[in-house]
């Protein structure tokens, strides 16, 4: 991977000076590349390498034969893949109507609906899993209501089985699916569906043959990212699963934390990463990577593989049939005679159906989170439904516990430091990536975004392994570095989005008017992009503040963070202090989210100001 400039054809003398200058302009990419190479690529490579050697340092397949010879491990793998598969299918199907309604609403409504998706998106997996424990437990919300309504006599077992885990993981990954699908749907031209209808298609045909195929890139990339995240998941399965729902990440944790069997843990990690790569490969064959990414358009790959051609032909036939069936149904319901302007892609009855579906899904996504609030005031000593009485006891306990307070302070300090570091690395890189042509750009982007794609558990144990060699385990510095690795992709994408909308001619004008590079940045660029940069900072902050996986391995004693403290409490005894802490976290998240939304609006206003004056 090289960051050297394309050979700008240094024709005349001074070719060397030119090449050097070109290199200097792209140099701001280097720190972040080096950072990720040292703290992500190198540790993961080492971890994976371990699995091929035995105690004597000789090359061996032993760990793998052990892995595949025991039925337990194969079963765990099967359970993991099955869970990821069902989670993906359910999450994407459920996400689609919500995304559809959001993308087709007018701006104000859209902003609010989107906000409702962001609340669960940014509430930690841990808090949400705890909420489901309260909802689904033997004495949980659903059972107590069902009994009160006389629907059942004995409590149903909703938790500690596959269904419980599936509900939990789907709930965990649904917001991400919605966000990805919305981002693609927003770019579909509203007039295309209308055009299809003017050409004689019914509403059903217009939806299935025009809108749906165009939204498919969103669906496939949502599916890919949900599947990959579900593969590496362990929080929800641990808290909501029974003894039979052990997933591969739990296995890795056990091997490494309890057995200290690094090579075998490495082998399991290779397996996990291998699964992820196979999925990537399949995805590439079927959909092509051009479909991945927020701004993906329905672009046909230059040379479609045979597999994808068959797939494409099948899907066209299928969509035609679906369209005709829907048209018939709409005709039966008398909904096909409405004027075109009435709606976007369905008649009013269809669009009511969309709204009802979307509404229920949004309720499913948001409501469970708030269950923690009443529970935090219960007088009982367990997190149970219904809460009885009212007390601040659990908040008092939280405030008086040195452990909890120290964890809170650590979390804030680490998140602050990690996001500062992240920004220091990501902002210069974003400038180069947006403003310069860079050789090997896609490879560089792949590296920079890889912390989002490589299962987090693998990053965590890889860091643990490397850290233990250099004494960084249990240190704040180690944690800050680790969290920066996780936050870089989010911050980078945030800053790149702002810069893409920034009119570079303003900088050029400033330079011509006599401002140096620094002056230009301080007086012109920064004031105009500060809202976007601040929201990227907050994204990085939340990513770190929320992280359990990396903290789980590389913290201990005084450096314990809030999520880790919660995790330890949750796996030992489930006391309402957890509900109190969760409530505090939820409130904090809501404040940050409101701040982000405010920043987004301010940022849009200042970008509009730029766009407005060029007319």
């Amino acid at each position, binding site marked *: 991977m090289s960051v050297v400039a*394309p050979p*700008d*054809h*240094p*024709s*005349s003398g*001074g070719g060397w*000076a*030119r090449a050097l*200058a*070109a290199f200097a302009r792209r140099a701001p990419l280097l720190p972040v590349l080096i950072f990720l190479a040292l703290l992500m690529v190198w540790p993961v490579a080492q971890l994976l390498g371990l699995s091929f050697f035995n105690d004597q340092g000789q090359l061996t397949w032993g760990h793998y034969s052990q892995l595949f010879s025991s039925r337990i491990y194969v079963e765990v793998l099967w359970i993991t893949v099955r869970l990821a598969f069902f989670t993906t299918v359910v999450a994407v199907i459920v996400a689609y109507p919500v995304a559809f309604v959001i993308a087709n609403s007018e701006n104000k409504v859209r902003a609010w609906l989107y906000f409702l998706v962001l609340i669960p998106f940014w509430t930690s997996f841990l808090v949400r899993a705890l909420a489901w424990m309260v909802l689904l437990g033997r004495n949980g919300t659903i059972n107590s209501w069902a009994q009160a309504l006389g629907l059942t006599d004995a409590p149903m077992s909703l938790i500690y089985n596959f269904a419980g885990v599936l509900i939990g993981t789907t709930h965990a990954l649904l917001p991400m699916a919605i966000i990805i699908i919305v981002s693609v749907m927003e770019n579909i031209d509203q007039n295309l569906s209308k055009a299809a209808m003017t050409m004689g298609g019914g509403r059903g045909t217009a939806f299935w043959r025009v809108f749906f195929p165009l939204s498919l890139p969103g669906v496939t990339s949502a599916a890919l990212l949900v599947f990959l995240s579900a593969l590496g998941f362990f929080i929800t399965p641990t808290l909501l699963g029974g003894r039979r729902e052990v997933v591969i990440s739990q296995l890795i944790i056990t091997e490494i934390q309890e057995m200290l069997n690094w090579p075998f843990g490495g082998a399991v990690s290779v397996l996990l990463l291998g699964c992820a790569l196979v999925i990537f490969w399949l995805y590439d064959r079927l959909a092509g990577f051009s479909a991945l990414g927020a701004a993906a358009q329905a672009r046909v790959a230059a040379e479609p593989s045979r597999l994808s051609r068959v797939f494409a032909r099948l899907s066209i036939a299928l969509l035609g049939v679906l369209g005709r069936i829907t048209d018939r149904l709409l005709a039966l319901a008398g909904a096909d005679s409405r004027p075109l302007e009435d709606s976007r892609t369905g008649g009013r009855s269809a669009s009511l159906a969309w709204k009802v579906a979307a509404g229920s899904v949004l309720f499913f996504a948001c409501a469970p989170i708030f269950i923690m609030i009443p529970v935090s005031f219960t007088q009982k000593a367990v997190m149970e439904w219904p809460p009885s009485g009212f007390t601040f006891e659990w908040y008092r306990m939280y405030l008086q516990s040195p452990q909890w307070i120290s964890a809170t302070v650590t979390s804030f300090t680490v998140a602050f430091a990690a996001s500062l570091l992240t920004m220091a690395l990501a902002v210069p890189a974003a400038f180069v990536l947006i403003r310069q*042509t860079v050789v090997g750009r896609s490879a560089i982007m792949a590296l920079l975004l890889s912390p989002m794609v490589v299962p987090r558990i693998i990053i965590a144990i890889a860091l643990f392994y490397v850290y233990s060699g250099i004494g960084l385990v249990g240190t704040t510095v180690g944690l800050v570095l680790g969290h920066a690795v996780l936050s870089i992709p989010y911050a980078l994408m945030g800053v790149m989005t702002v810069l893409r909308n920034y*009119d570079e*001619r*303003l900088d*050029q*004008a*400033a*330079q*011509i*008017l*006599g*401002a*140096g*590079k620094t*002056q230009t940045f301080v*007086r*012109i660029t920064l*004031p*105009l992009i500060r809202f976007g940069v601040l929201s990227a900072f907050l994204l990085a902050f939340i990513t770190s503040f929320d992280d359990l996986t990396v903290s789980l391995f590389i913290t201990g004693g005084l450096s314990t963070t809030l999520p880790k403290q919660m995790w330890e409490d949750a796996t030992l005894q489930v006391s309402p202090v957890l509900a109190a802490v969760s409530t505090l976290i939820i409130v904090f998240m809501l404040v940050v989210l409101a701040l982000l939304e405010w920043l987004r609006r301010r940022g849009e206003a*200042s970008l509009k*100001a*730029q766009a*407005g*004056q*060029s*007319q």
Partner: protein
Amino acid sequence: MNPIQETAGRQTVDAARNLTGRAVKLQVEKLAKHYGEFTALSPSSLDVHQGEFLTLLGPSGSGKTTLLMMVAGLVVPSGGEIRIDGRVATSVPPSKRDIGMVFQNYALFPHLTVFENIAFPLRMRRVPEAQIRKDVMRVLEMVELPHVAERVPRALSGGQQQRIALARCIVYAPSIILMDEPLGALDKRLRDQLQIEIKNLHKSLGTTILYVTHDQQETLTMSDRICLMNHGRIEQVGTPTDLYFTPKTEFGAAFLGESNILPIADVTASDGGISFTLPLDGHVRMSAPHSTVAPADAAKIMLRPEWLSVTVAPPQEAFNSVRGKVADIIFTGEVTRYFVSTGSGTPLAASQLTRPGDRAINVGDDVYISWPRERTYVLAREGAAA
């Protein structure tokens, strides 16, 4: 020198002569820009004199902006050199080149007031506050907008923003001003008005101006010299009259103004110039006595519509002529345009000043199109040595 030039536009020619006497302000030498395999500008050389108004003219994508941006220092050249006042400036940062630039979209800073926008270059030069106040108000008065000083750019109309951009550019009196289609986004009326303002500013400040436009009329009325560009190359540099009367290439002849371009055959040398036949109307033999193009290189002739006469009677001896049928007549006011088909190719266009009672020629009439022999302008084959 072609006699046509001497009869037409003598003043501008003189102006250009004066300019050549002046010092060279900006020198571009073998400057080139490649984007990967793509050549945005082939090695090009150009001298711009002190106080000159030079326009870059050419079709979209011909490399005008690329050249301008390299002069400004905003795009790094792939090769060649830029000299300002004789000193090499190729690697001098934009802020140190003493250049001003007016961008097509104005590039006013949206978060600063009009006053602060104009004050920006002065602040960068650490001018004392009192002086800044004086200078900003002076240029605001010059562009007749002193009342908008405290507004933000968004609160101005397009034409006002354009004038503020101009004011910001001249407030620090840069010795070279670059303008990239500065009037492109404005309506015709504002454009005409600002053209005059820019021209007046140029006269009173004596600045060297490098200007880019698509508008032919703008080019012809404003420029001291024109640099014609095509496909990332400089085709020809010269005064507006040079380019109009003696284009070096067929591209130049077709791009600037209207023209009839006709292929010729059977070229031989004769009385100082050449003689040839047109593959129209029975291959009449004609001559171009003043042509400097070698017979072997002569490929086409160019005839401006206003050089042609349309008559029913055959012309005199000293004229070249072809016969044809009037296909169409368009009356546009002061000028009447005739389209005469000659049997092959597109009809020839001829323009004549309209006189009262000009009803002698009608559509369908057989006519002669004629022009003085010495006005036959011969174009060389592409790639032929000039």
